[in-house]
C-alpha cells in the first residue's frame, strides 16, 4: 500500500450499533475528502461489509480510518483488524457466493470491487487484518 498517512481515527467494532457508527464516520471522512456521492456510497458500503465481517467472523475488533497522500492524490484508507479465527483459504473466501455462515458471500469480493486497493493479512488462530484504500 502506497501513500503517506496524514491523520487517523480509531473506532471499536464490538456490536451491530458500532457498525452503524463506522458507516457514519466513514461517510464524514469521504465528505471531507470531497468524494462524489457515488464514490462515498461505494466506500461506505465496503466499510459496512468489512465492519460486519470483523464483528461476525472475527468476533469483534477495530477500524483505523486514515487519510493518505501519494504525490498529488489523496485517498481514504480503512484498516479492519480482529484477533479472531483468521481466514484459512483467502482465495476461497474472496470468491463471490462463498460463505462459512448463512451470508450471501458477497462482502469480501464486493468490497474488493468497490475499493481501489485491497489487502488481506490473516493467520489462522491469530486474526485478520484487511486494509482497503479508495483514491480520489
Amino acid at each position, binding site marked *: 500500500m502506497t501513500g503517506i498517512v496524514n491523520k487517523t481515527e480509531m473506532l471499536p467494532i464490538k456490536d*451491530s*450499533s458500532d457498525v452503524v457508527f463506522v458507516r457514519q464516520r466513514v*461517510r464524514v471522512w469521504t465528505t471531507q475528502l470531497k468524494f462524489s456521492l*457515488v464514490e462515498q456510497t*461505494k466506500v461506505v458500503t465496503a466499510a459496512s*461489509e468489512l465492519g460486519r465481517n470483523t464483528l461476525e467472523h472475527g468476533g469483534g475488533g477495530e477500524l483505523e480510518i486514515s487519510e493518505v497522500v501519494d504525490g498529488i492524490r489523496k485517498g481514504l484508507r480503512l484498516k479492519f483488524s480482529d484477533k479472531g479465527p483468521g481466514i484459512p483459504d483467502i482465495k476461497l473466501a474472496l470468491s463471490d457466493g462463498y460463505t462459512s455462515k448463512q451470508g450471501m458471500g458477497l462482502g469480501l469480493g464486493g468490497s474488493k470491487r*468497490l475499493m481501489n486497493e485491497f489487502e488481506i493479512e490473516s493467520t489462522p488462530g491469530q486474526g485478520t487484518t484487511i486494509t482497503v484504500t479508495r483514491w480520489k
Partner: protein
Amino acid sequence: MERIPILRMGNFLLVTIQVDMHDKLALTLQDDLTAKIADVGAKGVLIDISSLEIVDSFIGRTLANIASMARVLDAQTVVVGMQPAVAITLVELGMSLPGIRTALNVESGMEYLKETVIDYRNGEDYDGDSEQD
C-alpha cells in the same frame, strides 16, 4: 425496543425506512412485517427506501427475505425510491436483488401493487406462468 413503524392502508402495508438500520433492527422489521401480513391478510407490501444512503448485502438480503416470506403469505412486495448511487453500488457489490420488484417512487409502487392484486383476483396473473422462484 426500537422498531420501524408499519402503516396499514386497506389491503396494503407501507413501511418507510428512515434510519440507518443496525442489523438487529432490520431483522425485527422482517419479523414484524411477516407477522403483520399474516395478521391482517395483507395483499401488498410497499417498502420505501428513498432515505437509505446505502444498501449493503445484509439489508439486501433482508429485503429479499421479506419479499419471499410475503410471497408465501400470498402478498406482493415492491421496494421503492432506491437512490441512483445506491443502485450503482449494489450492482458492483454483486447483488441483483433477485425476486424483488422495484419502482421509482411511492406512486408507481402503489400502482404496481393495485394492478397485481386486481389481476390476481381475476385469476389472470398465475395462469400459464411456469416461472419457479
